[in-house]
């Protein structure tokens, strides 16, 4: 990540809410596309060595994104995101839940709220995630991520080394 671009991450356990704030060195249109287009989402949503594989994405209110986080061994962890509100290039919301391979959600899930603003070519995205249960938040980490996590960190280190060489 570029150091001059802001990244905030706050977990508020009392309200079961996670706030994520990130600035991007790109205009609003591009950033909006990156968050709302299946082909682009699959390029970055899963931290390496995981990959994101979107099976269905229908970006409209009432529509859904049904996708899997895939481990390097090929194991799939399915997730279902149902769009509940969309204001183009400003805001969108969805209900997120783990699911089985047949799109049956495993409740409880979480409510995600994305806000987009642009100033002088820098786009800020604010994500608010409300979890129905803290246990689920924990599970989010446990499920799928824990094993591959060392690998993700190694990847980050690698990336940072490459970047610092430039």
């Amino acid at each position, binding site marked *: *990540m*570029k150091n001059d*671009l802001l*990244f905030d*991450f706050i*977990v508020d*356990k*009392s309200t079961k809410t*996670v706030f*994520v704030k*990130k600035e*991007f*060195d*790109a205009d609003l249109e*591009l*950033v909006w*596309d*990156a968050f709302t287009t299946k082909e*682009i989402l699959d*390029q*970055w*949503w*899963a*931290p*390496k060595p995981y990959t994101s594989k979107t099976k269905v994405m229908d970006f409209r209110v009432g529509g859904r994104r049904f996708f899997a986080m895939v481990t390097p061994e090929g194991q799939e962890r399915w997730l279902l995101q149902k769009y509940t509100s969309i204001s183009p290039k400003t805001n969108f919301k969805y209900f997120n839940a783990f699911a089985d391979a047949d799109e049956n959600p495993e409740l409880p899930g979480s409510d995600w709220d994305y806000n987009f603003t642009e100033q002088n070519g820098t786009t800020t995205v604010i994500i608010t995630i409300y979890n129905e249960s*803290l*246990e689920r*938040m*924990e599970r*989010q*980490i446990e499920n799928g*991520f824990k094993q591959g*996590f060392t690998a*993700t*960190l190694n*990847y*980050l280190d690698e*990336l940072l080394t490459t970047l610092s060489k430039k």
Partner: protein
Amino acid sequence: MRRDIFQAIADPTRRAIITLIALQAMTPNAIAENFNTTRQSVSKHLRILTECELVKQEQYGREIYYSLELKKMKEIDKWISQFRKIWEARFSQLDEVLQTMKKQKK
């Protein structure tokens, strides 16, 4: 009933107790003086914190002192930083994707 550290810090009074005893070990009475609730209510919170192993009790003479179990607090930190790192990794990938998209647009 299984207790865990996240249950311990889910309550505002318990978070305040943690902040208090992080500075120094205290007796239940001294802790209760800082709150507008009953001594019983503070005892209940201390019991939950003890069950979650976030605080430990030590006897000095006739008094019991409560202090913070720092090792356990670190578990919370560790959990949050794992979550944070996922987002960091994700966003560093998105930064790269956006740079590529910008170049393609030109």
